[in-house]
């Protein structure tokens, strides 16, 4: 049963092809059924092959299926061949599983959209390319998938291209990703020069055999990491992700939270030997990850648009994954990828359901008190928030904790500190989001409120499934406190992740670390609680009701003020400052700047294209003279 894995990608591809050809003629119902069925089928196949994989001995890893000797030029070979090993299995399960749930959700969400077929066709195409990316057994095939997902995200971000902003967001995403891809291509070329092959096995053997010097490894690793930075929206190439929220919400959930943006992490984990060999590259990865995590979290504080908050939080969580990979805890990084896929898509989808209920309203300041109107959406949203903030016994807690512990264990205290700080911020902004949206007094437009309704079951049931997984998914990777045996996830990945230097802490330290991170998480929630539930109207009421307690309450209020003045305001101010100056001016500036300069040069050169024969002849002659002068000297 282990040799059928190669059909996993083909099923969505086939379905997408059918939709391309007959899409416009088929009835909506059929389209949705086919699309979901295709993804579900490949999910089933993934599960089967996963079970099969667990039965065979580790020496047989990875399973390789050669379909066609694709490229052969001289000594360069790249086969059209898929591979299946634990890492691939995890990715395939996440992509198909979460993908399936999101497909189902989209049935309800896109129900009224005119270009229904185009949407599902693109989603299937995306699943296809993503699976190619994770299952390809060589870098070239991986690159094919890499480009494919980029293209699909471009198409899906610009899905509502009538909106000018959507079209622009799509273009921005595309251009930024091209910058990353340049690095990626060069990385592949260099690997080919120095290894002589692009097959992952050959590369690993070459590294294991010590055919690659450390400096070369660093160069290649950094080039590849440029690609990862572009795809996974890290500093400085993250700018496209927030704008990408112009796309439909399921797209944001699938592509920009669960799967595509994690491709970079997958790539780094896949090339883990390379990064381990060159310590510098690994450190840079960890550092970039940590900085991004913190930076994005600070920016999430001030956003009022639900989806943008989530987008920044995604960037910050991706930062965590890169921390994991950077400090050598690849298993932990992938583990976080896996849990994050659940709770972040859960958050996005429930945000989508909120939008759905409020007929497209995104501004949190215009919400509040929705708890009673959205009885089914609220609890799942809450679960997602708790999970992401790292409260114990939900999935987010385990993965985040694993990453932070190993960061600490490897002695990257700066990274660890940034991580911890990010925990506070994460908890804070997530619960700010919760409180502003579901608690407090209503700030709805009466117009919106008139047709305020809970989403249909086809949308809420997927949410509940995801919520379930967000709770339990973590238990496959219990922290080392409970002994290495119980960390099934890391154990499962060991054949792929050959790094052995995951430094171990003694029990007490680890427990302290865990408790500490939990404490800061709860602290963040508490802060949010104080500021967005307590503060607004409490004082006046209390003054009116209980004059005797006035002083005490006044003091409490005073304490709040202190909190506010000392912690929150500087944080908010700083993040606003960062957002306004750095993010908007510098980075967008450079992007537009580069576009402008190329445009300018184009103008400059085409100025010589006067259309006059004599000028053409003049340039021709100057060319000849320069050429001869060059030759004769």
């Amino acid at each position, binding site marked *: 049963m282990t040799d059928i894995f190669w059909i996993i990608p083909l099923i969505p591809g086939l379905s997408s092809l059918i939709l391309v050809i007959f899409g416009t003629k088929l009835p909506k119902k059929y389209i949705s059924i086919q699309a979901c069925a295709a993804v579900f089928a490949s999910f089933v196949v993934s599960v089967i092959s996963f079970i099969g994989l667990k039965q065979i001995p580790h020496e047989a890893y990875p399973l390789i299926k050669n379909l066609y000797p694709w490229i052969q030029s001289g000594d360069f070979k790249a086969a059209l061949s898929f591979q299946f090993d634990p890492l691939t299995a995890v990715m395939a399960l996440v992509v198909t599983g979460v993908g399936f749930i999101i497909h189902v959700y989209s049935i309800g969400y896109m129900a009224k959209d005119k270009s229904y077929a185009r949407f599902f066709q693109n989603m299937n195409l995306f699943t296809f390319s993503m699976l190619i990316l994770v299952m390809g057994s060589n870098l070239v095939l991986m690159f094919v998938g890499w480009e494919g997902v980029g293209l699909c995200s471009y198409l899906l971000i610009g899905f509502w291209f009538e909106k000018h902003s959507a079209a622009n967001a799509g273009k921005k995403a595309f251009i930024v990703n091209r910058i990353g891809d340049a690095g990626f291509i060069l990385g592949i070329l260099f690997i080919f020069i120095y290894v002589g092959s692009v097959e992952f096995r050959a590369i690993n053997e070459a590294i294991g055999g010590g055919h690659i010097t450390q400096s070369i490894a660093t160069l290649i690793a950094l080039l590849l990491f440029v690609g990862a930075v572009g795809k996974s929206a890290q500093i400085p190439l993250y700018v496209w992700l927030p704008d990408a929220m112009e796309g439909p919400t399921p797209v944001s959930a699938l592509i920009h939270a669960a799967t595509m943006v994690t491709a970079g992490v997958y790539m780094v984990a896949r090339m883990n030997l390379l990064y381990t060999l060159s310590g510098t590259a690994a450190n840079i990865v960890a550092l970039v990850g940590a900085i991004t995590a913190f930076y994005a979290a600070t920016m999430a504080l001030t956003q009022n648009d639900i989806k943008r908050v989530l987008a920044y939080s995604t960037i910050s969580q991706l930062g965590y994954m890169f921390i994991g990979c950077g400090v050598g805890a690849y298993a932990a990084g992938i583990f976080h990828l896996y849990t994050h896929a659940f709770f972040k898509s859960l958050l996005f989808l429930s945000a989508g359901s909120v939008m759905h209920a409020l007929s497209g309203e995104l501004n949190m300041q215009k919400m509040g008190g929705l708890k009673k109107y959205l009885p089914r959406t609220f609890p799942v949203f809450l679960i997602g928030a708790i999970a992401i903030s790292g409260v114990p016994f939900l999935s987010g807690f385990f993965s985040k904790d694993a990453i932070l512990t190993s960061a600490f264990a490897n002695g990257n205290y700066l990274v660890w500190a940034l991580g911890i700080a990010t925990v506070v911020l994460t908890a804070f902004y997530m619960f700010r989001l919760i409180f502003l949206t579901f608690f407090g007094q209503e700030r709805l437009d009466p117009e919106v409120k008139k047709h305020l309704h809970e989403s249909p079951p086809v949308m809420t049931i997927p949410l509940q499934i995801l919520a379930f997984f967000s709770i339990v998914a973590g238990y496959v990777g219990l922290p080392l406190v409970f002994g290495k045996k119980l960390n099934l996830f890391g154990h499962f990945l060991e054949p792929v992740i050959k790094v052995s230097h995951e430094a171990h802490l003694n029990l007490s330290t680890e427990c302290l670390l865990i408790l500490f991170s939990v404490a800061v998480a709860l602290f963040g929630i508490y802060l949010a609680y104080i500021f967005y539930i307590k503060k607004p109207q409490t004082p006046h009421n209390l003054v009116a009701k209980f004059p005797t307690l006035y002083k005490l309450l006044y003091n409490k209020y005073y304490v709040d003020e202190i909190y506010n003045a000392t912690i929150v305001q500087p944080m908010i101010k700083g993040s606003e400052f960062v957002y306004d100056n750095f993010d908007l001016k510098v980075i967008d500036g450079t992007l537009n700047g580069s576009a402008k300069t190329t445009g300018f040069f184009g103008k400059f050169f*085409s100025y010589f*294209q*006067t*259309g*006059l*024969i*004599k*000028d053409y*002849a*003049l340039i021709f*002659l100057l060319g*000849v003279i320069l050429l001869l002068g060059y030759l004769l000297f």
Partner: protein
Amino acid sequence: MVPTSYFIILSAILFVLGAFAFFVKRDLITQFLCIEVMLSAANLAFIAFAKSASSLDGQIIVIFIITVAAAEAAVGLAIILLVYRQKKTIKSEDMNLMKG
């Protein structure tokens, strides 16, 4: 006995003159004649080399080139006529419908 290099220098002078006259002149016919000058410069060089190497190939080649030049003349003049019929001018500055 005139040394070959003299012929070569003469042909080089002819060639360069033709080349520069090509874009100094503003009249299509004249520009075309400049090209003919360049071609005959090449012919001169061929003949001179053939003579110095006392081999016949060069002279045959010259015949080929002359033929080609004649054919080019026919095609070229036809095209120039076509343009003249449309624009009533053969100034090369006026041929600027397409640019940029």
